[in-house]
């Protein structure tokens, strides 16, 4: 009788691997070397092409180079999605581990393959479950400070355009307009950021007939709503 039913049989022949899943956080060194060493080399080679030699990470300059190779603008949402996929922590910089993470997940190791994989990535990210995670990520990605918890209005306007511009053009245009005109709020918090996403998904626009001031929409959206109503009158 097997002691644990979860242990797959075929792995018994390899004494060093622990599980059969791919998302191993601490893979044993030997398994890594045994596994697709060919691919790893490819990813690192690619990485080194764009990385800054002294700092050992891909810096903004490198990313620009990468973008021109991929034939996308560095303000294209696909780059942000790539950052999300690799769980990049610092805007403008890709570390080796992050790079590897993304390329591995996308199953690519050359620029050509990466370029091809980008539209698929976008499709995947746009799935509702992923998108809200991506949306929150894009906000946090703007933090330059460890203790930071809000983002300035100007950055928000650009970010909104990039992240929601294609799906909620109207809402983004009006809201960005409002943000620029008002002077009560100088920064946006995560709660307000997510609130706007919910607003786009739930509220009929531009009628906003199903919006209510009595509910718990963030105050900034209440003000936005009232401002819109005044304009429509």
């Amino acid at each position, binding site marked *: 009788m097997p002691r644990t039913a979860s242990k797959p049989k075929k792995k018994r022949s390899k004494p060093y691997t622990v599980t059969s899943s791919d998302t191993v956080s601490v893979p044993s060194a030997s398994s890594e070397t045994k596994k697709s060493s060919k691919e790893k080399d490819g990813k690192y080679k690619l990485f080194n092409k764009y990385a800054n030699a002294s700092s050992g990470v891909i810096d903004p300059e490198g990313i620009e180079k990468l973008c021109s190779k991929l034939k996308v603008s560095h303000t294209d949402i696909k780059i942000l999605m790539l950052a999300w996929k690799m769980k990049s922590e610092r805007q403008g910089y890709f570390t080796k581990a992050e790079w590897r993470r993304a390329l591995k997940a996308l199953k690519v190791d050359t620029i050509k393959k990466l370029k091809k994989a980008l539209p698929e990535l976008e499709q995947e990210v746009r799935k509702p479950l992923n998108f809200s995670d991506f949306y929150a990520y894009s906000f946090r990605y703007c933090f330059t400070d460890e203790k930071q918890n*809000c983002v300035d209005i100007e950055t928000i306007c650009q970010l909104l355009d990039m992240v929601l511009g294609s799906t909620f053009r109207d809402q983004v245009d009006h809201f960005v307009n409002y943000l620029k005109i008002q002077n009560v709020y100088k920064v946006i*918090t*995560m*709660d*307000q950021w997510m*609130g706007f996403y919910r607003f786009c998904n739930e509220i009929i626009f531009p009628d906003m007939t199903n919006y209510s001031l009595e*509910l*718990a929409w963030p105050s900034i959206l209440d003000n936005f709503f009232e401002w819109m109503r005044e304009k429509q009158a």
Partner: protein
Amino acid sequence: MYRATIIDFEQGCKCLEAGVSELKRILEEETSETRIDPKQYLELYTTIYNMCIQKHPHDHSQRLYNKYHDIVEHYAKKTVLPCVQQKHDEYLLRELSRRWDHYKVFVKWLSHFFNYLERFFIPQRNYPSLLEVAMKSFRNRVYLEVQVNAKDVVIALIDKEREGAQIDMELLKNVLDIFVQSGMGTIERYKEDFEMFLLEETESYYARKASRWIQECSCPEYMIKSEESLKKEKERVTHYLHSSTESKLVEIVQDILLVSVAKHLLEKEHSGCSALLRDDKTDDLSRMYRLYHPIPKGLEPVADAFRIYVAREGNALIKQAQDAAANGSLVEAQVLVGKIIDLHEKYMVYVMDCFKNHTLFHKALKEAFEVFCNKKVAGSSSAELVANFCDSLFKKSGNDKLSDEAMEATIDNVVKLLDYISDKDIFSEFYRKKLARRLLFDHHKVNKEHETSMITKLKRQQGGQYTSKMEGMVTDMQLAKEFQKGFKGSLTAKPGGIDLAVTVLNTGFWPSYKTSTDLNLPREMVECVEAFKSYYGTKTNQRKLRWLYSHGTCHVIGSFDPKPIELVLSTYQAVVLCLFNNTERLTYQEIIEQLNLSHEDLVRVLLSLSCAKYRILNKEPASKSISTTDVFEFNSKFTSTMRRIKVSIPPPPIDERKKVVEDVDQDRRYAIDACIVRIMKSRKVLPHQQLVSQCVEQLSRMFKPDIKMIKKRIEDLITRDYLKRDAKNHHIFNYVA
């Protein structure tokens, strides 16, 4: 008497019938006494008795019972009914009444004859009693035939009486008793054959009256008529109606005369509720209360009218003050609070007297005052106005302008008034600031009993936390005095040759003041400060003293050429003058450098010493304002007729109102935060609207929170990780432990 012979039934009946005829005859004659000859009575009784106790088959009880029934039936049908049916109108009633009386007597005697049946036969067989049988016969043979006509006559008579005619009340009483009795133990016959129609008639009668009266009469007149009508109807019941009719009659009359016309009546232009209040018609108002009190929800329109009137009066006062302020006069605003208090007292009297202290009217008064007591006049909120009022009140009291009772009464009124003001925290802030000034600058004028009385009363109404700082301030003054005694006692010599008195304040209780610790004091004063500091250090543990030179007073002797004069000055003024002990002339620049005072403060001081009423210093050039290039010189020629003068200095032009509002706003933010966290901690999960409404409720004792502010605080608490939105429903919050 024992008879050996058996009485035959027919025989016995013959005897009976003779007796019955005799009875009938006697009744017809209507002599004052209806008396059967005792011998005959006994004979009849005995006959029946014997017929009952005879042995079978001569035991005639059953047949006798039936015979009884036949007799009463016959009497009712053949005697009573025809007589009644012949008559009409009132005569009908009279005949009916008469015949009814006869019937009762008839039945009484008959029952005596047949009494033996009652003892054994009837109970044994569980038959209806003799009286029941008789009553039933009367009902079926007489009552049912004549009741409609009788009812019509009775009601017609009642109508006549309502119009003022005199009617025979005993007659009606008797007739209606027939209706009642015909119910045979229930009140049904009376209700269905009479009462129902009476109520209908009453309704249409009063409807007619109401529509006429409401047009022709003023409100008081109408009420008097209504009261009269109710009184009469109640009397009617005691005179001849059955008692159960009273409540129904009263209800109808009230409904028609008072309820359906309530709006029209109360709002009558020249005599309605507001007119009565305006003209102080307490009798009429009391009547109104009396009339509407028994009616369910009847008092509500009256209380409403009262509330609207009082609110109007209050609003008028407010508008008066607002208009006057717009035209530049602020006097109205100052006397406004006093006027509102007077208004409150006036209408409280109404509530207690005319409206018998009823809670509805207390509530109406409260709501009326809440309407206008929260309006602003000339930019000042009512909270500020009341605080100003208190300030002048207590400043006056030092001059004994008000007797102790009058003062206490006014204090009571102010505390009551505070209950109507929603921004109670603003009042407390203003009050505290003014209290501080009174305690620090006018302490010899302050009447401690009055001040404490106000604080105690406020505490009783609003709670200890509300008054804790004020109490602290008053206690501080007391402690400071005692501490000062100790300090004086400890000194062997005057530090710097000066009599120093220090008041130590507890920072937490007092409003925040700007300190001026950088001020360069003259040597003598420095000695004073040091002396006190060391004494204080021996008496307390590690406490830091912050010196408020801006709030001190100094008595300085000016050695002027004509004569020395004592000057009562602020510390700042004294410090400036002391500089001139070393040199005769000083420039503005020199003064400011040596002292380290701020420019604004120094300008005020120099103005008071060189350009105002008393020229202690001479200024070059002798203009009316201070410039930084001016030069000042000690005016040795200065003199006055008095030996001591107070050189006043105007207070710095801080916008106190703005500061108070800012401080209160900040406190409110903390209060809202604390409230939200407290609620969420206990409830764990709560939808947005409920959180907001609970928050409002909890805070309403102190102030009326702005919903938008609450929303903002919630969002702030989300960002600070005290709450979070529920993952499934973003309009519900979860407490983050």
